[in-house]
């Protein structure tokens, strides 16, 4: 399982990059969902988001999940290419699979990489 140390993580498996405001779903989340076949980003550029607000809806062959904002702020960018290539979320969740960027983002209740890794291990048993 890949858990980059520079990112912050939520209990609902989103990641947040304090350096540039990017957010997405974790490697753990994509592997639990399995093959992702559809993503719809539910917010537009310029929109304000609050922590816990649904920012995207993701569907895999076996499940459907809402993705929540890990931080509050203004949406400065939306990864528009994702809807044509939802499988990017499986192959590169922390890179090309970023979903939105939140400007002036103040993160909600987040964990660092070590804590998140431990949290995921606790769930897989």
């Amino acid at each position, binding site marked *: 399982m890949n858990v980059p140390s520079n990112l912050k993580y939520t209990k609902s498996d989103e990641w947040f990059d304090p350096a540039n405001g990017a957010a997405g779903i974790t490697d753990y989340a994509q592997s639990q969902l399995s093959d992702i*076949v559809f993503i719809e980003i539910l917010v537009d550029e310029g929109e304000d988001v609050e922590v816990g607000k649904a920012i995207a809806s993701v569907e895999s062959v*076996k*499940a*459907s999940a809402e993705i929540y904002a890990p931080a509050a702020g203004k949406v400065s960018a939306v990864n528009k290419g994702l809807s044509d290539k939802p499988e990017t979320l499986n192959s590169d969740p922390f890179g090309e699979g970023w979903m939105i960027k939140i400007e002036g983002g103040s993160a909600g209740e987040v964990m660092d990489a070590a804590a998140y890794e431990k949290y995921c291990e606790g769930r897989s048993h």
Partner: protein
Amino acid sequence: MTYIPISPNERDAMLKTVGVKSLDDLFDAVPKKHRFPKLDLPPALTEMEAAAHLADMASSNENVREHLISFLGAGAYNHYVPSVVDHMLRRGEFYTAYTPYQPEISQGTLQAIFEYQSLMTNLTGMDVSNASHYDGATATAEAVNLAYAQFRGKRKKIVISPTVHPQYREVIRTYTQAMGLETAGDDPNADLEAGPEALTSLIDESTMLVIVQYPDFFGRIHDYTKLIEDAHAKGSLVCIVANPTALLMLKTPGDMGADIVVGEAQPFGIPLWYGGPYLGFFTTKKSYVHKMAGRLVGETIDNRGQRSYVLTLTSREQHIKRERATSNICTNQGLLALAAAVYMSTLGKTGLEQVANLCYQKAHYAAGELSKIEGFGLCFMEPFFHEFVLCTPRPAGEVNQYLLDNGILGGYDLGRDYPALQNHILVAVTEMNSKDEIDTLVEVLKEM
């Protein structure tokens, strides 16, 4: 599938688990006087007596197959149902099948739904069809939900033509009452002579959906192409409520550019049945498939390379999306979707076109003869398919009562929904109405 009964041992085990000794103990919480109340029932009848009694009661109904000549339509039409439709429906494999989750055991049901979907998309000129809705009215209301989801609640206005079926408009209002929507155009006092372009001025940047009917509630045929262009220019979606029989003769809603085409598929192999159960169809463009409610069956190949059918985009199913699932509205219309598929494939394209043509020709013959009677006349000048508005010299209720006394089920009394159309009835003519029947209608009205 095997029926698994409960054995005395299993029952005892269950009772033991919940901590009671007997069934009587289990129901102890129910007060004694309510447990076996004396029912006020007449003495028991033998099967023969009961059958005779029921037949006696049933014979007091008058129906359009045996007793009455019908010119009543208004959303439910008297068409011929080939006997093969009923025979297919009553096959146990289809009749008893429930939710077709498992492709391993449900290939027949899944294939039937797939065929139904394919036929409906051909008919409407759209990309995808779901596996059915309760009826045309709820399918139309679901179009509002699709548009609402598409704009993620940011557009809240729907423009509804006043010539969409009044009951459909009522169902849309009921369905969406808690969504905080604004409705425009839906005014029974509106200028009913106005064409579709009258709706254009109501469409703005907050409009999510425009709903029109084709042919409209008064049977008139409009080309909505221009209206749809205008709606699209404002970013709005357009839903056309269509009569499937008429689509065999007319330009398809898909060709006009419609985003959603819904309607009532009762004309396709489903008897009048006192108003239900009916079959709502729902078709749309591929880009809206994720927002479409209901179940979807797709064709694929299995691991041996054989053609097979499966539920597709399954996140709409109960076992995936739980309480947010939308497939549950399809389940119990599956049998009627099968009826429509059997009807369409039995008649074939040529047969369906013949039905449409017969409806059209007979309706126009009837309209011509009726409008010659003194005091009667056609209300609108636009082209119509198989239904038209007839103005009557006396209140519609009186005219219909007089017809009924002569064994004829008259038209729909439009004054009930449109204040401006007192003394107007909506007359429907299908392939079931012979020339003799139409001539009888004309004769009876002449004598009135």
